[in-house]
């Protein structure tokens, strides 16, 4: 019998539609797999088995009754814990939200529920999405299915590990500086950060409002396109939501999978390769470029001179917005409430005690940074300058997209590092996102596609690498066309998906 957990969402959807399997069977298979591998991986903070099975039964019944269903109806999904889900805990990986059960659904969750997709549970993450390793979760580490001693990336390490470990065919991530794409790269999965405004942020516990974007975490490019089309599109509850309809993403993925990229110009960003990138990562990247050339693409080199300031600008804008977004966590209305151990119980002292006890060190670090950056007298030098850099980076992208249809780079400069390795060195941790951050600053879409394995410098088993494709705003379809073409070329070379080579955790 086929192991249902190893099938892609597109294939599962086909089998469900054809009546070859039921949603209950698929959902139960995922739940069984969760039971088997979760003790080792710890991708989930909450598993909603009963609710998922109830949804599955309902969708099976509706299908049996001949009801017209969404193409993904019955396909299970995992959701990052930063997305609010009615009646299901939503902690954003923080102690300060322990026990909080939201009274409402994020827009993307409404769409998932409306499509009849069983929600398996909520996935682990760095606290409030601050981190690149998921080690900043208040609820323990998630382990990389390729090597349990290593990080699964972050902040969305839980979603990436869940998909890589075959406990869910699909997951939702959020990407503020790379939190979908970098975990995708280091776990051998596909991750897409849509154009800013392409997926509603209503119901995403905000990290940095001008950078956050939810997107798909999957095992194939086509699956990402299917999920992106479900969760994307205009939402009147998000003022920054794009009013125009999405381009044809699934069509672009199917077209790309046919392997013809003639007429497509691919721009290699000079500043996003070379120094600081592991030789194996760089080698896989160049091999992928050759495959794109073979598929008919023209490869050119483009320069984005202001990218060298991207990380600095990002680490002013993000903390500034986060310091304000996280102000609401004060013990007054929801979540954790800690009263001071001695002295009077005033609102101010409860707020201080709650925030002191509820936030982890990385969160405090960024709140302090952001509060400082916004302070009177410093605003222009820090937040103001960072916004100017942001404009310059947008201009770099505009100029680069004059020369190329898509831009490409390695997604992450390194393969997965060891748990604990960079925990005490925030700057080294931040550098992991050097290639992904510019897209967030400019609001453009990006995808990471697994493009091979590389032995880390310290030796040991080979680990996944990722190939990043960036497109102009609202041209997300280009990601899918190029991403699917590369995926098809690589899989035909490998003779199957990369994840087939991952250790069997079961």
């Amino acid at each position, binding site marked *: 019998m086929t192991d249902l957990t190893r099938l892609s969402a597109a294939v599962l959807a086909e089998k469900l539609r054809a009546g070859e399997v039921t949603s209950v069977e698929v959902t139960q298979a995922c739940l069984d797999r969760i039971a088997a591998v979760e003790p080792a991986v710890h991708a989930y903070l909450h598993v909603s088995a009963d609710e998922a099975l109830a949804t599955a039964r309902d969708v099976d019944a509706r299908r049996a009754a001949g009801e017209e269903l969404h193409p993904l109806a019955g396909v299970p999904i995992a959701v990052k814990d930063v997305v*609010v889900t009615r009646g299901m805990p939503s902690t954003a990986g923080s102690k300060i939200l322990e026990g909080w059960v*939201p009274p409402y659904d994020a827009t993307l969750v409404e769409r998932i529920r409306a499509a009849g997709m069983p929600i398996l549970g909520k996935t682990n993450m760095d606290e409030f999405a601050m981190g690149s390793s998921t080690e900043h979760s208040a609820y323990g580490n998630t382990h990389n299915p390729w090597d349990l001693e290593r990080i699964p990336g972050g902040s969305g390490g839980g979603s990436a590990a869940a998909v890589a470990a075959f406990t869910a065919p699909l997951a939702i991530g959020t990407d503020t500086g790379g939190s979908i794409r970098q975990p995708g790269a280091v776990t051998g999965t596909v991750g897409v950060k849509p154009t800013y405004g392409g997926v509603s942020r209503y119901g995403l516990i905000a990290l940095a409002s001008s950078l956050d974007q939810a997107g798909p975490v999957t095992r194939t490019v086509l699956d990402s396109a299917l999920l992106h089309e479900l969760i994307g599109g205009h939402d009147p509850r998000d003022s920054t939501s794009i009013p125009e309809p999405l381009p044809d993403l699934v069509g672009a993925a199917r077209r790309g999978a046919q392997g013809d990229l003639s007429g497509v110009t691919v721009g290699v960003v000079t500043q996003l390769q070379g120094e600081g990138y592991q030789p194996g990562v760089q080698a896989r990247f160049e091999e992928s470029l050759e495959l794109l050339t073979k598929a008919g693409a023209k490869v050119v080199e483009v320069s984005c001179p202001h990218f060298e300031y991207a990380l600095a600008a990002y680490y002013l804008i993000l903390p500034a917005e986060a*310091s304000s977004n996280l*102000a609401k966590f004060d013990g007054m*209305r*929801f979540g954790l409430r800690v009263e001071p151990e001695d002295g009077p119980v005033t609102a101010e002292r409860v707020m201080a005690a709650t925030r002191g006890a509820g936030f982890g060190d990385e969160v405090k670090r960024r709140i302090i940074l952001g509060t400082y950056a*916004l302070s009177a007298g410093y*605003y222009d030098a820090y937040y103001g300058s960072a916004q100017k850099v942001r404009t310059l980076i947008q201009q770099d992208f505009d100029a680069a997209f004059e020369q190329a249809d898509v831009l490409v780079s390695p997604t992450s400069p390194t393969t997965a590092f060891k748990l604990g390795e960079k925990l005490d060195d925030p700057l080294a941790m931040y550098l992991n996102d050097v290639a992904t951050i510019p897209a967030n600053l400019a609001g453009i879409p990006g995808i990471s596609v697994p493009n091979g394995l590389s032995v880390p410098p310290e030796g040991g088993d080979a680990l996944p690498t990722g190939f990043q494709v960036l497109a102009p705003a609202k041209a997300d379809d280009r990601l899918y066309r190029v991403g699917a073409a590369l995926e098809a070329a690589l899989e035909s070379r490998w003779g199957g998906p990369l994840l087939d080579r991952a250790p069997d955790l079961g």
Partner: protein
Amino acid sequence: MTQMVDYADAVRRYDPVLGIEVHVELGTRTKMFCAAEVEFGGEPNTQTTPVSLGLPGALPVVNGTAVEYAIRIGLALNCQIAESCRFARKNYFYPDVPKNFQTSQYDEPIAFDGWLDVELEDGTVHRVEIERAHMEEDAGKNTHVGGSTGRIHGAEYSLVDYNRAGIPLVEIVTKPITGVGDRAPEVARAYVQALRDIFRALDVSEAKMERGNVRADVNVSLRPTPESPLGTRTETKNVNSFRSVERVVRHEISRQAGALDAGRTIVQETRHWHEDTGTTTSGRVKSDAEDYRYFPEPDLVPVEPSREWVEEIRATLPELPQARRRRLQTEWGYADAEMRDVVNAGAIELIEATVAAGSSPAAARKWWMGELARRAKQDERELADLPITPAQIGELQGLVDSGRINDKIARQVLDGVLAGEGDPEAVVVARGLEIVSDDGALLAAIDEALAAQPDVVEKVRGGNQGPVGAIIGAVMKATRGQADAKRVRELVLERIGA
């Protein structure tokens, strides 16, 4: 404690400068950034959504009607309307601010650079320059339980009601108001009152002071002469009535003059107004420590009202109170002083409705500014609160005009209406007050009077008409005043044959 300086003395020796910030709660159906319905007096925390509770994940969406109302206010105050403007976050921790930041316009107000001509009770007009009018959201409401003062100090615990959190506000900020001298308190009051009237005319707010729909923050500073640089100001917050606005200015002028006389400097601070004692006390000192860390609200896109829309709003602005007053004065033919009295008595609407009910403007004014004003004063209530409607006054005047009752009887009819006996017509019938216009009935009464006073008849026949009054008086008495005195006179003379 600083010695207060007598007000007249203070304004003789110092030049007061005002700055007034008025917050008006807009009467939109829903809140500034979410669909929570707004209604006065709901159960606590029932008019909320995840947005107005500041729940994780919730996002704001600008209320288009609130923007329209803000533009209306801006246009009525002769302001420029921004082509593009943004909201900002004003960051501070306080439990009545659910997000711990207030979403407010900061350096990009929707309306700016306007003015408003304010008319004082004696007809003097003072132009108040408007710096800006910007949109923001209201905070929730804290109730401090326990303790004696109702203030947070000494309270056992506090309750927060978020029904008010997120209600749209427009804040109107003046430029420094100078050159008002001893009339500063009047100007302050007249300005706030003029704004209230405009809000009502524009139909953007119920603008009830007593409900806190309109709140004023009053800034006052003194300087030795109008040529001196501006002095340090104090800001007295949340002044909730016209009278208090006037009193605050007066009090602050006297208090600051006292401090300056004593050689002290004025501290830039927030002050609280105490209605009962008529004094202000020091609140928090404004200093650099108060840093709201403003930055543009990243969850919202800029508000960009198209010029076409702005012109459409301008074209459909209702007639504003001042223009309306001028028009009505012309239509009614009132003298300036008469019109001012009407305005000051708050009788415009009443007179307008009375005229609409058929009364002449002169008669309407006579009723409302005469007999009714007297009765309102006697009962210590507002004219509009008397239990009589303009329609009833119109009807009453109609009875007089048609000669069915006379002025004297009309006052009795008024008594009846005020006593709840029904409309004037009904009171006339029920009390049997209609003028006796039946000549037969009158003649009977006249003959009786003539018979009783033969000496009078003689005198009149002798050419002296003076004593006719005695006969008329007797007839009037006999008919309980319900006879038309003019007709009685005619009939008497006819009867005597003079």
